[in-house]
């Protein structure tokens, strides 16, 4: 059931300790910073977080990790020049890491939303990231069996929502939003703008409202540029 909430605090209030939380975004583009900040404030801990990265600098996911609220990261690229909070926790053995090639990460999230129980992908075959995994020769190449990544909650940033919860995104900020919205039991979206039902062209809807549970308008969260500036 879709609901529009007044604050990011209300939006994340139901997130429980031990949840698996998907967080959209690639770099700053599409990162729902305000929702992540609210998750930090709400106190939920023992989280498994799915994101392409593992936090950067002194903001968002990096702070969740710093505060010891993340027990496990599922991501493709944790190590960055400014991922010091993750690096420290990882070296101290205080955070678990499941490293997944980026396309397998995306496809595993997509599989969860699409009700696919598992799939074979050529990506990663023969590498240490496929060690111990089932392999099979299909369509002329060796492939690795991968399973869906489900989540309790997704935190997503979109550009606009209408009254039915349909979403559109902006440029490369679209990235993980649509597949995470479909993969999570409960999807929370921050948008720059809420338009009346009928205000989005049905041909151009990217995420249908069926995948959306809570929407909160965050002023000025339209472009990552503003965040960076």
């Amino acid at each position, binding site marked *: 059931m879709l609901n529009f909430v007044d604050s990011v605090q209300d939006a994340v209030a139901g997130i429980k300790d031990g949840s698996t939380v998907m967080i959209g975004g690639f770099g700053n583009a599409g990162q729902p910073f305000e929702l992540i900040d609210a998750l930090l404030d709400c106190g939920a801990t023992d989280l498994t977080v799915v994101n392409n990265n593992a936090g950067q600098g002194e903001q968002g996911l990096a702070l969740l990790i710093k505060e010891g609220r993340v027990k496990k990261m599922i991501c493709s690229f944790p190590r960055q020049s400014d991922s010091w909070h993750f690096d420290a926790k990882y070296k101290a053995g205080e955070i678990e890491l499941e490293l997944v090639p980026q396309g397998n990460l995306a496809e595993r999230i997509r599989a969860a939303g699409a009700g696919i129980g598992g799939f074979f992908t050529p*990506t990663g075959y023969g590498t240490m990231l496929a060690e111990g995994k089932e392999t099979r020769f299909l369509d002329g190449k060796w492939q690795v069996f991968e399973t869906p990544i489900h989540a309790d909650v997704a935190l997503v940033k979109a550009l606009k929502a209408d009254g039915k919860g349909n979403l559109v995104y902006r440029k490369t900020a679209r990235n993980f939003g649509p597949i995470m919205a479909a993969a999570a039991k409960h999807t929370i979206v921050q948008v720059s703008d809420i338009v009346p039902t009928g205000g989005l062209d049905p041909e151009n809807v990217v995420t249908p409202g069926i995948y959306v549970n809570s929407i909160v308008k965050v002023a000025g969260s339209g472009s*990552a540029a503003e965040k960076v500036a």
Partner: protein
Amino acid sequence: MSLTETSLKTSETPLGRDDLAKLVARDIAPGSFVNLGIGQPTLVSNYLTEEQNITLHTENGMLGMGPEAKGDQIDGDLINAGKIPVTELPGASYFHHADSFAIMRGGHLDICVLGAFQVSATGDLANWHTGAPGAIPAVGGAMDLATGAKDVFVMMTLLTREGASKIVDACSYPITGVGCVTRAYTDKAVFLIGPDGVSVRETFGCTLEELQDLVPVPLKAAPAAG
């Protein structure tokens, strides 16, 4: 052809990074869909011509990526896989991550250009992880790019700082993909990797014989391109 063949030498000196990028750019067929990896491969975009009509893919969700954004063009919602602000060309399109990697995994890209630590005689690629104890691994889209494109070109210096060949019999670094590299562009030569081994298309500043002394893999001269 014999190992003493010298007609392969197309330059008296090793190629610099920009000259190498220019060479790769020239070798990309008109109308191709191409993904340029982070780092040195990005330089290739500087030498693609309008006549080539190349469409650039960035795995974070775009086809029709334009040059790096400058000044007022910078938009935090429009970045490439290296998280650098870029621009949008007419005829661009956006899609989500699963659709973007489907383009790669499905074999729809003509060429992907990547950096490398090592390339083996059978085309194995190592470019994601030094394997050093304590190093935090990070893979990103490297394995997807290595696996997906019809042709995987590598750009690298031939030798490490310590003077070891990066063209190797078998990779000592953890590999990114098995048998995926079809061509390696280096400062000293262009290597073609195929089912019958490694051949050399051209050399820069050395003869094939001198090159063979550096590389621990049997080399032969490539048949002249048709």
